[in-house]
């Protein structure tokens, strides 16, 4: 995903590593979502 980042336009210095922020942000929304999907999937076998 690094090639998807904004270009580093500052003179000198490197852009900060955003990977921890990406992981945290996706976990923030992903974990509740996956829990919801999991709760839903548990009901499905009753159909068959």
């Amino acid at each position: 995903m690094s090639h998807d980042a904004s270009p580093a336009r500052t003179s000198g210095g490197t852009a900060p590593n955003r990977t921890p922020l990406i992981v945290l942000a996706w976990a923030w929304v992903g974990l509740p979502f996956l829990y919801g999907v999991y709760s839903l999937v548990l009901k499905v076998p009753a159909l068959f």
Partner: protein
Amino acid sequence: MAGGFFDRSSIVAPPGWSRWLVPPAALAVHLAIGQAYAWSILKQGLIDAEDLSGTATALPFQLAIVMLGLSAAVFGTQVERRGPRWAMFVATICFSSGFLISALGVATGQFWLVVVGYGFVGGIGLGIGYISPVSTLMKWFADRPGMATGIAIMGFGGGALVAQPLSNGLLSAFGRTSGGVASTFLVMGIAYGVFMSLGWLLVRVPADDWRPPNAPAASEEKADTGPAVSATEALKTPQFWLLWVILCFNVTAGIGLLEKAEPLYREYFGQASAGQQLTSAVAAFVAILSLANMLGRFVWSSTSDIVGRKNIYRLYLGVGALLYVVILLMGNSNKVIFLIAALFILSFYGAGFATIPAYLKDLFGTYQVGAIHGRLLTAWSAAGVLGPLIVNSIVEAQGPEGTGPSRYVVSFSIMIALLVIGFIANELIRPVDRKHYVGDAERDRTATTEGASR
């Protein structure tokens, strides 16, 4: 709130910012406001605690959906002008406050406060929140707009999946009394306020010189020749109204199935099982439809980036109509085929929502696509009335005479007709005439204003 922290100029992505941080910001809002689809759980809590009727407790939800369409249409231009942080912040405040006002209403026995809080104030949060990330996502993912909006709008479908266990857990913990329901609203208001805050804290707009990977450099790109139609001008084009018909009828066809999922399954397969087994199977059927609705938003919308928007709507509308024909012809003779057809219809229903922003972008450009999207969502409000009206009135009009699959022949035939009309409308769509594009001066002025603000 004008200027400063909430202004568009404050959220221009710094060097090294990843565009993959934008979908979680959008999801933080959409997963929260998607709670609306799980209103039935809070509704039941209100019925148990306050001894209110089903009709009365449906009011907050109905008003919220009406306000969703209205506020998206009314505030669309404002959202476009002020930017996604402002919009997400307002959505957070409104949606969260809606729960808090409702908590006060339940605690004091003033049900009208629940209607005003959840329905009116919360509904404004739904509308502004729904459109808040759309144009930003499409600017970051100009190479994959269908996938980007598919992720966000899948979040709206998935919001109910998060809210169901949350609402049930809170009601079980606090009890189905006035105090318990008020506490449930209070905790949900605070929790959603915190959860949604990731959105307005994290969202960024791309810098002027940012381009998606493998896109032509700014100097090579003829950015000033693509479509750029204002929201006001879009209403004067046949393309807008054709898309309105497509969205309205596609949604109506999906709601036709979704609205009656529970009685439909009982009518079709109720004789094969009974009691607790049937209850569990019905719950599973509703669950699997929700899953298809949600996954369709991401899968089909992402596919539209490859096959094109017109082709994907041919699939939603054309194959959707054929699947309704299959259900009509097969009746309850084959459960597996019935399930497959129902799942695909619901996946097309969800996908219709998710793909429409990218279709709008193709036709009108990103200039005011969020505002145009907001106006188009009035089709959703219309479908929300039309779908249940068709299915309920026709099925109920048949009374006790019609039983089993035969009860649905007329309503499903109407759904097929609506999908065919939608299919024809899709065939009639052509690129927007250049006379509707904003002038070069306006493009330059917008570019200069945005550039200066950065």
